[in-house]
């Protein structure tokens, strides 16, 4: 396993004149997991895609083990999946599953459009997560459409990969899935981003889904003068 650290500094991405997000900074070390939380349209997908080297940022820089994303992709095993809607509908499930490692992921020969949303999502995840070695995992709403068994499999797999040294960045609206997995949380809101590190508030209690939801709501509703840390600590003390 290659130890991969991701460093993002003052990142800004725009589509034409529309600024998607601005001044986003964080670091994710090897064996750590970052959860990205934000409203629809806040730029979660764009952020992950920029780290994956598909989008050229307007400002700022990304370093993956000291390299630019495009250079890092050649040397670091990267698993990136943006959801079942990115799978080509006409391809057979068994053929797609073999594209990850060459090994079959499923024997189902139906075209992907014939599978359920959850079936496609699971196949897409198993295809990219089967790659070896994996130094960096970038997943966009990975629990979306999964049944409870598949969701549990995904959480366990991500924990296992993280514990074996992979850096994991995952966006999700499912805060209860993120809360048990992540070491840090990036709240991505229009005109504001806040980073919360779990160990910095661990003295007052664990990070729970309810807590994440409260912090997110306060940030969304404009507690602009308060830092995430202050909101978090106050919330924990109140409880």
């Amino acid at each position, binding site marked *: 396993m290659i130890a991969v650290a991701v460093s993002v500094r003052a990142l800004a991405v725009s589509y034409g004149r529309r600024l998607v997000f601005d001044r986003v900074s964080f670091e994710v070390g090897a064996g750590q997991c970052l959860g990205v939380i934000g409203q629809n349209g806040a730029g979660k997908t764009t952020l992950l895609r920029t780290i*994956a080297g598909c989008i*050229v940022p307007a400002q700022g820089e990304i370093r993956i083990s000291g390299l630019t994303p495009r250079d890092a*992709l050649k040397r670091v095993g990267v698993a990136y999946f943006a959801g079942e809607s*990115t799978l080509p509908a006409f391809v057979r499930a068994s053929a797609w599953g073999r594209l990850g490692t060459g090994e079959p992921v499923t024997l189902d020969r139906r075209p992907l459009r014939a599978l359920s949303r959850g079936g496609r999502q699971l196949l897409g995840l198993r295809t990219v997560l089967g790659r070896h070695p994996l130094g960096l995992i970038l997943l966009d709403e990975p629990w979306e459409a999964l049944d409870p068994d598949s969701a549990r499999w995904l959480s366990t797999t991500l924990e296992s990969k993280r514990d074996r040294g992979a850096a994991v960045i995952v966006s999700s609206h499912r805060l209860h899935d993120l809360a048990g997995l992540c070491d840090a949380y990036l709240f991505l809101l229009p005109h504001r981003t806040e980073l919360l590190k779990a160990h910095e508030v661990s003295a007052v209690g664990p990070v729970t889904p309810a807590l994440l939801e409260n912090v997110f709501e306060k940030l969304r509703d404009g507690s602009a003068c308060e830092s995430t840390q202050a909101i978090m600590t106050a919330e924990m003390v109140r409880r």
Partner: protein
Amino acid sequence: MVQELVRFFRVVPPVPSLMVVTFFVVTIVSVVAVAIDRSLVAGMLNAVLVVQVFAVSSGFVGHARRGHYDLLLTRGDDRVAVALVHWALSAAPGLASWLSVAAAEALTSLGHAGVAVASGSIVAVVVVSTAPWAFTAFLPRFAAAIGWLAVFAVGVGVQSSLPVALPLVNLVYPLAMVGVDVRAHAGAAALPLAVALVSMGAALFAIRRVSIPLEGAQ
């Protein structure tokens, strides 16, 4: 690396299966027609090239923006190599069809495939197999082919009332070069060839640098 790319694009083919079936039918009809009457070669090659214009208008970036090529783009493969393999497999069915007709011509004329291997035919197949791919790289599938049909229709109308230079005719209608020896009029073939190669280079250069956001995330 190229083998991996070819394996990927065989699973996610740039040319729809219906188009491959169309090529198959056109090839069978063409081979039979040439076997019956060798003078039909040019017409049959033109039919193959018309289908080829649509086949290579495959829209690389459009598919990439839908996330279909994410497995490749996040694996560290050079984007130019990815695009070149995409182009090659877009053009492959048409080239196979064209070669089949050329082989039929050679068989029926005792090894002399005069029309299919004429210099003009070679230029035409190169132009038709590259320029539409390049012009459609950032556009939806078939965009270049539809645009070409529109320009061709306008060109036919204009040509009847205005004198049009031969290089321009060959640019708008490269099929006119099929079976022609263009070595004596190199300038007439040079313009469409130059446009095809420059547009291909420009498309590859842009694909290497451009951002590929997801359609739904913009």
